[in-house]
């Protein structure tokens, strides 16, 4: 509700950031149901076709989980890059699904795409950092 007061905040995908964070910190197998459920919830609240976001989130989360199991992804720049790529893949997956089912294209405008990417990158990195600090404190506590 608060975020929708600002138009450019509508392109912020918190569910995507959540799935990225979980994928960075868990194995691929647990990411799948998390991405599935979060995507379905997002579909339910968006009023669109159920399964579209679930599909894209599952794809993004799985591949990030596979990547993070082999690579150490902690540096902020790399994280920002990862979030940018994830945002692109997420939007592209939804667009391809629309194309597959012969639906009207769902591509954002270039400006909206850049807004979404930048927002996800900034909020994502900040959020991941805060979440890591909280998790670390809880572990030591």
């Amino acid at each position, binding site marked *: 509700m608060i975020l929708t007061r600002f138009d450019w905040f509508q392109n912020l995908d918190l569910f995507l950031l959540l799935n990225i964070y979980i994928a960075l910190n868990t*194995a*691929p*197998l647990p990411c*799948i149901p998390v991405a*599935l459920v979060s995507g379905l919830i997002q579909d339910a609240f968006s009023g669109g*076709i*159920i*399964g*579209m976001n*679930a*599909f894209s989130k*599952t*794809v993004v989360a*799985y591949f990030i989980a*596979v990547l993070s*199991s*082999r690579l150490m992804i902690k540096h902020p720049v790399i994280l920002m890059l990862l979030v940018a790529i994830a945002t692109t893949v997420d939007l592209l997956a939804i667009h391809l*699904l629309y194309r597959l*089912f*012969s*639906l009207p294209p769902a591509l954002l405008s270039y400006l909206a795409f850049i807004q979404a990417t930048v927002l996800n990158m900034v909020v994502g990195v900040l959020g991941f950092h805060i979440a890591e600090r909280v998790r670390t404190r809880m572990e030591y506590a």
Partner: protein
Amino acid sequence: MNEITAEHQRSFPIFLGTLFLLLVVISYQISDPATGRSVLAAVTFRLFSPIQSLFAAAANGVVDTVQNYFFLVNTNRDNVRLQQEISHLKIQMRIAGELRQENDRLRKILQLSEKFPYQLLSGEVIARDAKAAQSRMLFVNRGTRHGIETLMPVVTPEGVVGMTVMVDVFSSNVLMITDASASIGAMLEKGRIAGILSGKGGASCILCFLPLSLEVKSGDLVVTSGQEGIFPENLPIGRVIREISESPDYRCAEVKPFPNFTSVSEVVFLKLESGGSTK
């Protein structure tokens, strides 16, 4: 690292399965604008229609094979039935042919009856003398019940056969003119000089007691003379084959009878009508 690889190997099929499930869910919600059916229904139909076609082709093949088998069985049964019908028809045709020939013979006999004042009684040969090399006795299916009497002339449309020598109620024995014991009055049709025709026991007869002045040639027609009182006059007997010398006092000639005694199947008895004569 091995654990990670194993983890990835376990999770990848689940990942693909999840994506497939989501695609199914999405396609169920989207309708094909062309048909109005859901995309899921359209894709399912498109995927399974070749398989369905294969099953249908296989099923139709089995059905066709079974039907062809029963068709062949029925065809074979019809074939056997038709073969039997053909056999029956052939037999009927043969009988019809024989009936036609019998009809022709009887017509000739009927024509014969118009020439002589005799009552014609036809009969069928039912047996021949089995002891002889060439039958000289015929057994006919007419007897006293039919008006047959002994010493009754027996002929065919071709010529003289012989005479009855033994008559039963329903059958009679006919002594053929070729029998060695048979003798009838005969003459050459040209000149009309009477002689005696006797059997030789073979397939021909001998006409003897012809005057030496009479010229006998091969092919001369021999007919009955009627002088023995049994046969009417001028019934055809046969033709002269050759002249033979039996005695210095008279001429003789070998005569081949007209009827084929080995194949004769119907004969005619000549019953003299009351008040009639052989002349």
